[in-house]
């Protein structure tokens, strides 16, 4: 695709009180793109967004917008608008005046034009008839819509969204995800979206930027990120993964857990230690005698669509998602297709993730709660 670069971040570094928040970030953002910055709390995604919005200045590096360096351009001179995490609506103004704010600041005097454009926006965010309502009387989802309408009325080139759906319940989140995506398609405005929710990132974005500890781990399309994670960190953060120690015997052949598998990756060299990623849904459960590997089921959890099965294979706990019930403590065999095996080079994250020996739903819920408290 021949698209135009709209924003370039060049070697951005930022620290607060001596603590490095962003470490030499470089990123290209194109016109008409839905790009998501994805990462856990404190990974620097919000800071990156604030630097693009002009609320923080980088310690070093350049922010380039449409070919011009804008490091020192204040937010009110940038063609970029923001939807803030907690909406930040103006509590002393009603819905209409909140949305009209950008027009009034731009000193548009024609009340008819203001009224027309506000109505247009209200229609876009499905809030017709809410003009005279006070913003404090609105629910979270409605406030969110007002915030989006307010940010879009000045027709910015770029819309920044800082975890805009964080405070909404699941059902509303799903609806808003679809709406945001279609809004982006309709308006052709570049959306830069920040979230820690990997599912949200995968389902909405054209491009996902996975961040950790102030660095970019991987940039790619959602399918790339999911199917071809660059390292153990990305593989673990995006969806569930079994990350196993392996040795690349030769091209298209990898040995792990004592069995040599056929795979589709090549070019790693002979007898190279690697990380092998197998997604839980790609593991087939078979009879113990006929499986490539065999192991003992340690726990089974019903998840609705599938069962989540933890299997101990030679001391390593695998997660398998299967629609067929298996009994706890049963011996089972597993098969893995060649294209289900993804090979990654060893990295600093090797061995840190992808083993489900300490896995429990409780722990999962705990870590999710801490993620809610965003940076």
């Amino acid at each position, binding site marked *: 695709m021949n698209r135009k670069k709209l924003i370039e971040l060049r070697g951005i570094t930022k620290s607060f009180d001596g603590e490095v928040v962003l470490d030499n970030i470089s990123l290209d953002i194109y016109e008409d793109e839905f790009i998501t910055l994805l990462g856990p709390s404190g990974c620097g995604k919000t800071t990156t967004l604030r630097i693009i919005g002009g609320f923080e200045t980088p310690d070093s590096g350049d922010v380039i917008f449409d070919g011009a360096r804008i490091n020192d351009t204040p937010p009110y001179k940038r063609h970029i608008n923001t939807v803030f995490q907690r909406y930040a609506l103006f*509590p002393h103004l009603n819905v209409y005046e909140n949305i009209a704010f950008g027009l009034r600041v731009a000193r548009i005097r024609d009340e008819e034009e203001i009224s027309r454009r506000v109505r247009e926006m209200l229609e876009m965010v499905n809030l017709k008839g809410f003009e005279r309502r006070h913003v404090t009387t609105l629910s979270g989802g409605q406030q969110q819509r007002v915030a989006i309408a307010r940010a879009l009325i000045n027709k910015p080139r770029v819309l920044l969204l800082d975890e805009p759906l964080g405070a909404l319940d699941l059902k509303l989140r799903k609806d808003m995800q679809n709406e945001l995506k279609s809004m982006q398609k309709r308006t052709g405005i570049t959306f830069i979206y920040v979230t820690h929710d990997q599912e949200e990132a995968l389902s909405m974005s054209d491009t996902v930027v996975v961040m950790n500890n102030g660095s970019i781990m991987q940039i790619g399309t959602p399918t790339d990120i999911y199917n071809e994670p660059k390292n153990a960190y990305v593989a673990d953060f995006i969806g569930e993964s079994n990350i196993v120690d392996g040795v690349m015997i030769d091209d298209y052949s990898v040995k792990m857990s004592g069995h040599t598998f056929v795979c589709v990756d090549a070019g790693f060299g002979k007898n190279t230690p690697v990380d092998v990623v197998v997604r839980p849904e790609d593991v087939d459960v078979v009879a113990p005698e006929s499986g490539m590997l065999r192991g003992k089921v340690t726990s089974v959890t019903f998840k609705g669509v599938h069962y989540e099965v933890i299997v101990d294979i030679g001391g390593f706990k695998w997660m398998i998602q299967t629609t067929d019930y298996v009994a706890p403590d049963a011996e089972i065999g597993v098969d893995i297709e060649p294209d289900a095996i993804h090979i990654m080079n060893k990295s600093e994250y090797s061995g840190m993730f992808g083993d489900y020996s300490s896995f429990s739903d409780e722990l999962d819920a705990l870590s999710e709660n801490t993620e809610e408290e965003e940076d």
Partner: protein
Amino acid sequence: MKILSRLYLILVFIFLYAPIAVMVLISFNSSESTTQFSGFSLYWYREMLRDSATLEALRNTLVLSISSAVVSTVVGTLAAVGIDRMRNRFMRGAVMSVTNIPMMNPDIVTGISLMLLFVFVGTLLGLESYLSFWTLLIAHVTFNLPYVILSVLPKLKQMDKNIPEAALDLGCTPLRSFFKVELPFIMPGVVTGFIMAFTLSFDDFVISNFTSGSSFETLTIHIYSMIKKSVKPDIYALSTLIFAAVLLLLVVYNMSDRSERDDARGKKRRELRFRGKEGGAAK
């Protein structure tokens, strides 16, 4: 038990308001006696209104308390904004202690030190009479400032820092953002600060006594000088009027406060009613 607690409450109110009740009663006395009520009359009110010096003092006090309240509200609000934006916690603490000193300091110390300063500077500048309306104004602004700052600061703390950022984001310069977004948000604090400054300034005797010259007499100073001669019931009449005015101000203030609260409660009710429709609007 219930009767006892009622009784206790009544006793407290008697304790608080008996002096004022007596003063109000005596102000309507037809004779000059403070011990015998010989009949209802408005004589002392007429007497008081005929006294041009008292009226002059009242006018002076109003001019002084309004102007000092305005100045300290403006300066105090700006100071609060500055303090709120301080990133260095130690510096902020230091500045807050310094601003709080005039509030904690005994009035008499503040009064004497201000007088000394005015005399010192006045002599240095070679002025003939250095204590005037202006010195009084400076003194009043000095002791009003911390009250304004303390009533504005919590409002600023309450404000989501993204709100002024949203205004910048939508094209406001920092100055416009302040007037269009921040000021409306902190307005209740600013108004409270203003009312507090006004009443403090209106009330003040000790500091005014040290910093006003003979050319500008406030009401409290005037009353004090009248008492030194002889206490006549026209002072009770004046005090009763002031009390009535304060009472009125308080009632109006509380009423507006309550209507604001009722408003908020109404909003919550409306919000609850609305939640049912939420799902429909989302689609």
